[in-house]
């Protein structure tokens, strides 16, 4: 019973003890295989990110409409035909650092993050490396990883399959300040 009350206590007070760092201007960019004829590249600098240092939880929220391409028509096709942003307006990632407690971040640390990516109506468990460090009192995190369109039901029609690669390189850059 005591155990249960401790748990209940933790359950209710943990948000208060939390050390949350947040940004609404993280950057996510992606690039399709450069071997392909048409390089598809886009950047979104309106990504929301939160990291809770007290328990190692983190969450990202990506508005698909905020990805900008050099070519306007590509942006339209991205939204209309590929990610279908009218149906699935945002992608999210909810996860946690694998090695807890977090090491002190006086020097740059490469850490593993595990969680669930939710995009285009598909949820997929993913693990990737994140480099975390302090930058003048702000928390800086960067990461890059590959996504496969086919994992998220994003169909690339045969007629353009030699132009658009299934593998997408994603780069994330976030500078989070204390909430």
């Amino acid at each position, binding site marked *: 019973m005591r155990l249960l009350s401790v748990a209940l206590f933790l*359950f209710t007070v*943990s948000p208060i003890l939390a050390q*949350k760092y947040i940004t609404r201007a993280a950057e996510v960019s992606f690039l399709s295989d450069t071997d392909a004829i048409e390089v598809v590249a886009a950047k979104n600098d309106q990504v*929301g990110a939160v990291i809770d240092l007290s328990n190692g939880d983190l*969450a990202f*929220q990506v508005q698909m*409409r*905020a990805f900008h391409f050099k070519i306007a028509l590509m942006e339209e096709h991205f939204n209309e*035909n590929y990610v279908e942003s009218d149906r699935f307006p945002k992608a999210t990632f909810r996860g946690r650092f694998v090695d807890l407690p977090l090491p002190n971040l006086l020097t740059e640390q490469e850490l593993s993050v595990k969680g669930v990516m939710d995009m285009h109506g598909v949820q997929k468990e993913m693990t990737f490396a994140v480099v975390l460090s302090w930058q003048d009192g702000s928390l800086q995190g960067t990461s890059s990883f590959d996504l496969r369109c086919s994992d998220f039901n994003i169909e690339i029609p045969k007629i353009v399959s030699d132009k658009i690669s299934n593998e997408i390189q994603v780069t994330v850059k976030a500078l989070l300040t204390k909430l």
Partner: protein
Amino acid sequence: MKKITLLSLLLLVNTLKAQNELLSLLGDQEVNQEVYGTFKGTKVINGQSVEMPSQSALFFIIEHRFGTINSGAYELWGLDQASMRMSFEYGVREGVVLGVARNTFQKTYETSIKTRLLRQKEGAGSRVSIATYHAAFINSMRHIDSDREDLFRSRLSYVHQVLIARKFNRAFSLQFSPTLIVRNLVSLTSMNNNYMAMGVGARYKLSNRVSLNGEYFYQFDRPYEDFENSLSLGFDIETGGHVFQLHLTNSQGMFERAFVGETRGKWSDGDIYFGFNISRVFQ
């Protein structure tokens, strides 16, 4: 044991709850809510749509209309006779597009300007997209009528349109195009120099890359009784930088003066022209 299970369950719930709470901290971020892709092409079929190239994008469009399908096997059901329109459309800045075109029909040159006045937005904001389209047509046929002086102004005709479109949902878009045609010279004294028409265009998406399109232009004061209203049906097929439009229409002309007011084909008689538009984007 039971307590431990309960505890671990509670912790798991706590983790998920915490991560969801983290997400909710971010709230709903504002993003660009402008509606995209009301139509796939800058033309619905013959008539202009509210779509246009973005800033510094260049569209090259080739259009073909073959002869009438009822012309029989000798003409290979119209394929022997082709009429063409080539055009360049360039986005000088966002929402302002200049165009030039050349038509086989009466060796007509065109210059045009399309401007966006309003863009439909999701949520709060405009419920429709509005654009205007103005074009001047220059007939460049050799002057053969010796009774009449060869005046440049007599070779000119114009179109002025307001294009009002709404994308109702991901599949269905509808456009109204009030149209004024001005002809400096008409062939009969009984013909009007100016006349009004109302265009209605629609598209229904069958899949992410294919849509069904329809278009009709109703003439309010028909300049000449022999002329029909233009009715066209077709498909848009989109493949990356290209849009292919395949259609059947009773108009062989591909510019407004020709198809709005000078359509001769009757659907009921099988005077139907098969045609296609191909657009390519350069940027």
